[in-house]
């Protein structure tokens, strides 16, 4: 174990003109005489050199930026970069060689006689992709507070993480400091901000811990806001991840993402939407489950508190998005039905498990097609003797959606007709309409007259209620 790195303080620049150069740059070689000329003509010049400490000649105040701290903290992307500094603050900057820009910045005319007017610079060593990650860890690693574990040189990284019981049975990406810092770029939230108190051990969980588990799950940084929102939503009394985790029943959290973010991060809502093959779908739900496992302490098995008798393949992690782009005319996204303004990025959580097929390849009217849904839902109505319909979720595929939409049925109409018929069969009045009774998601491939019913766990206030939670993408 090593102690957390200390963040190096930003290096203060001397007033006057500051140049950052490296010898391994033809443009820097070209302007070396100009730098010497500036000093001769009375400019208060400081030059930082990234590689050769003797370069350039003819400059008195020459410093070797050997650890690249100056370059990193002052965000130097190109060499040469020329800065004007007043009272310790940068007030002007120019990159590469440009006679007019250099003359304006230094206030000296007639610079670099015989040189071309312009010459683009070269990449700064501090943004060299082979060392940029190391620099970020060196200079920003101090913002990370998690314990560091040094894996022995003979340990296989993947095996080491299995042995520490940090995985769900599949390999995880080793959460190195560089990867976690990169992950944190996916959010504006501070690494030490508390996201939620995670059951079963009721542990306050920071953005940093979520980011570590998101790295392990295989997420990209742009998925992190969804994972953070999912952790927040899961740990509410409404969704009750505590009970869901501890039950002997099958279910786990299914995440449904709505809003423009889903498409921006490449989530699938079409073919094989409930299956494998899409990175965002496969890793976002997994990240939530790893947070519950690693931070909350909710592990399956003999020594864990997850005592599901059977579990379900979906408990590895399950996330989908709704196909908002192709919604039939008059249909609204699930998030809008749940009360959010159109265009809001949301993640909804449903306590459910494997899909059960709703098959009807013959019906050509909504009136006929609803029968297949009634039969399917009725068969599940007696789960837990509760006779509730809000522990089911319907994923309606495009071909079924088309049949409903051609007869003018939208989601609300489908839900109302379904409830009326299902409850009439058992001689009970239909419950008051609610967006989650049952929730309806439009998704799936465009060929196949199928839909899916996702069975859920105990619903209502005694169990888990569906929750549709906004995703924070700005500070």
């Amino acid at each position, binding site marked *: 174990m090593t102690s957390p790195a200390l963040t190096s303080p930003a290096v203060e620049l001397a007033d006057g003109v500051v140049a950052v150069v490296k010898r391994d740059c033809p443009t820097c070689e070209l302007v070396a005489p100009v730098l010497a000329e500036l000093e001769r003509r009375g400019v208060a010049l400081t030059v930082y050199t990234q590689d050769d400490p003797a370069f350039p000649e003819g400059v008195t105040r020459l410093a070797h930026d050997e650890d690249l701290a100056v370059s990193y903290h002052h965000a130097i992307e190109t060499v040469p970069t020329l800065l004007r500094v007043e009272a310790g603050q940068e007030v002007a900057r120019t990159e590469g060689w440009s006679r007019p820009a250099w003359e304006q910045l230094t206030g000296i005319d007639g610079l670099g006689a015989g040189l071309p007017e312009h010459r683009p610079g070269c990449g700064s060593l501090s943004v060299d992709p082979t060392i940029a990650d190391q620099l970020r860890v060196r200079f920003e690693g101090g913002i990370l507070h998690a*314990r*560091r574990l040094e894996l022995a040189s003979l340990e296989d990284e993947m095996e080491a993480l299995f042995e520490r019981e940090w995985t769900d049975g599949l390999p995880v990406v080793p959460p190195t400091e560089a990867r976690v810092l990169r992950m944190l770029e996916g959010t504006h939230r501070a690494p030490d901000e508390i996201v939620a108190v995670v059951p079963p051990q009721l542990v306050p969980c920071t953005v940093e*811990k979520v980011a570590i*588990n998101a790295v392990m799950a295989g997420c990209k940084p742009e998925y992190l806001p969804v994972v953070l929102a999912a952790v927040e939503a899961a740990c509410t009394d409404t969704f009750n991840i505590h009970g869901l985790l501890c039950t002997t029943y099958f279910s786990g959290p299914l995440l449904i993402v709505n809003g423009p973010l889903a498409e921006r991060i490449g989530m699938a809502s079409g073919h094989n939407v409930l299956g494998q093959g899409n990175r965002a779908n496969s890793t976002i739900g997994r990240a939530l489950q790893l947070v519950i496992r*690693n931070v909350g302490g909710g592990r399956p098995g003999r020594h864990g508190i997850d005592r599901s008798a059977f579990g379900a393949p979906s408990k590895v992690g399950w996330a989908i998005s709704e196909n908002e782009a192709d919604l039939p005319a008059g249909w609204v996204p699930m998030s809008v039905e749940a009360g959010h303004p159109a265009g809001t990025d949301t993640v909804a959580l449903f306590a459910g498990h494997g899909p059960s097929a709703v098959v009807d390849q013959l019906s050509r009217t909504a009136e006929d097609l609803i029968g297949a849904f009634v039969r399917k839902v009725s068969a599940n109505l007696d789960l837990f003797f509760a006779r509730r319909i809000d522990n089911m979720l319907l994923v309606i595929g495009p071909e079924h959606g088309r049949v409903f939409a051609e007869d003018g049925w939208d989601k609300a109409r489908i839900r109302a007709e379904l409830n009326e018929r299902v409850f009439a069969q058992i001689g009970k009045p239909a419950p008051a309409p609610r967006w989650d009774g049952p929730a309806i998601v439009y998704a799936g491939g465009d060929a196949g007259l199928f839909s899916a019913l996702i069975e859920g766990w105990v619903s209502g206030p005694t169990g888990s209620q569906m929750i549709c939670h906004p995703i924070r993408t700005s500070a």
Partner: protein
Amino acid sequence: MTIVLDPTNEQRPVTRQRSERSAVIDGMTVGLLDISKPRGNVFLDRLQELLEDRGFGVKRYAKPTFTKPAPADLRHQISQECNLVIEALAD
């Protein structure tokens, strides 16, 4: 050599001192906690009969739902009113 960040909560469980066990339990008040699973009451009803036959005072409690931890107030109430507690955990 690879350095990785710990994904766990890094906490060690607190070891709590168990309250002292009495060699004699005669005359103690026993709390029976129903977690609200189906048929938990059948088991607890029978236990209550057996305990009362043997001269124990019995108090009954129930969690609002089996899916969530017992509310702190209920746990406190049980600790104040009883010497022993028996929980019917499953259906």
